[in-house]
């Protein structure tokens, strides 16, 4: 089998995943985008492995690792998103975080500029 097809599929997955990550404000959809990217990585690994005929089977092993990690990620992510939903009532990623307001407190006199004479 030509490697072109799986690689093209991987590229397609990457594109879709990037779109998901970049364009979706919904947290879960973003998560799906990430999963697509991971899938592309796995696909590439497996393809390359079969293509190169490596004896150690590193490619498939790594793919399995990625899948496992992805599962773990999803668990944590969903837990966090759930908590977010409980707190805010939405899982929109395009909302300013509450605590991100900068503290510009009073001590700027520490480095006043030299005034012109």
């Amino acid at each position, binding site marked *: 089998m030509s490697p072109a097809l799986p690689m093209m599929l991987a590229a397609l997955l990457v594109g879709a995943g990037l779109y998901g990550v970049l364009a979706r404000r919904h947290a879960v959809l973003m998560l799906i985008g990430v999963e697509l990217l991971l899938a592309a990585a796995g696909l590439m690994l497996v393809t390359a492995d079969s293509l190169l005929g490596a004896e150690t089977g590193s490619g498939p092993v790594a793919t399995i690792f990625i899948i496992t990690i992805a599962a773990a990620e999803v668990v944590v992510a969903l837990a966090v998103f759930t908590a977010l939903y409980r707190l805010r009532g939405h899982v929109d990623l395009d909302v300013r975080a509450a605590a991100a307001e900068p503290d510009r407190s009073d001590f700027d006199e*520490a480095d*006043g*500029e*030299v005034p012109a004479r």
Partner: protein
Amino acid sequence: MIWLLLAVFAPLLGALGLPLLARLVPKAPARVLGVGSLGFAIATLTGVVGTVLERPKVSLEWIPALGVRFDLAVDGISAPLLLLTGLMGVVATAVPAHIDADNAPGAAVESSRLALYYACLLGTIFGAVICFLAGDALVFFIGFECVLLPMWLLIAQFGDPAPQALARAASLRFLMVTALGSTLMLIGLLAVAASTGTTNLQVWAQLAGSTFSRPQGLVVAGLLVLGLSFKVPVWPLHTWLPWVHSSAPSAGSILLAAVLLKLGTYGLVRLVIPVVPAGFATIAPVLGGFAVVGIIWAGLACLVERDLKRLIAWSSIAHLGFVVLGLASGTEAGMQAALFGNVAHGVISGLLFVVVGALKHEWGGADLGTPHASLREAAPHWGFALIFGFAASMGLPGLAGFWGEFGAIYAAWTPAPGRPGGFFVLLAVGAAVGAALAAAYSARVLREVWGGERTKPAIADAGRIELLVVAALVVIVVGLGVYPSLLLDSTAPVVSTLLTGAP
């Protein structure tokens, strides 16, 4: 060796010990701190004198990963500067502190504040001593950086109290500008270190840039010169100096002018000229041009400057212009003149800042326009010190300032082979005109402050200690002026070594 330890550790111990003392004995009278710091400064001076006479060498393993050894040594070039540092340390700690009590409610606080003040002075001296002793580029650099924090504190915390924000801004600017300069220098140094595989200054001088290709040498020399130019300062990187001087306490000004600015010129002599001679030769005309522009620029600024301290700062820029011009010429005569002018400026500007600091305190400001008593009548000792200082500053022969200026003009007229001769002759003419400007602004100041018919407000004349300090500086200025071989013979052998690259 014991002298070396004394020279290095006396200021360090003083800088660490005095605040500790103030903390442990909160009721310690200010006098104890003052005398203590003076004692440490005198110990430093003693150590320095001993070191200069004994010429010990120290070489310790320090940072093998960077190829740095802790090398300390003295030679004919660093010896005068070390002595200058030691002397100015004594001067700076001896002159009255004039720290204002308005922001310290309790006596205990006052003593800790005073301790901090003296610690800063001694810390600055420590850094300078390390710098001048360093036989290793990175040790030099660390000494170079060591003076920054104490100086910053000195200006920010003990500077001109009237607009304190201004003093803080000035101190911060001092720090920023010097740090930028020193980092540029550091990059150059590291490039040299990578190329030569060592940071030993003696080896660098022996290799004399042979490890560099031409463009490389140019870049490195450019970085080093640019970085050091901030410190010297060379026009147009000088704008920080007048501000800092006008804000700094007088002891700070003394150290800044007499010691810290010397680090820059010393760096040029040690780290650039022998290390990347070809690169330096290429940029020397530019450097010399800037130096002369600075001489004239600063001289002109002095003609209209109203603040006496700032005026002296401006004049420092002009004088260091002569030093840099001498270095740019690339001849032995030029370097001799530069080294002489360097030391002479240290002593003279120290003297002037002693006077002007006291006057500023007495007058409540250093503005020439406020009605000042004619010093000649009202405070003859200060008056004498002022007129003497300005006479020396304008390069009057028989006083120390002369040889550096004359030598620099001569060197510019006869630059080293390969330098554009016609251009350097122009520079010599410019420098000579700048020297005339010095007379003009000196005359202006003396006319305004020294002579005069006003006798109010009456001010106190110099106290005994101040008189002693002034007398010592006057003796040195006259001594160097009348018998320049004192210094010239010390530097001459090293200068010819540095310029020829021979071991």
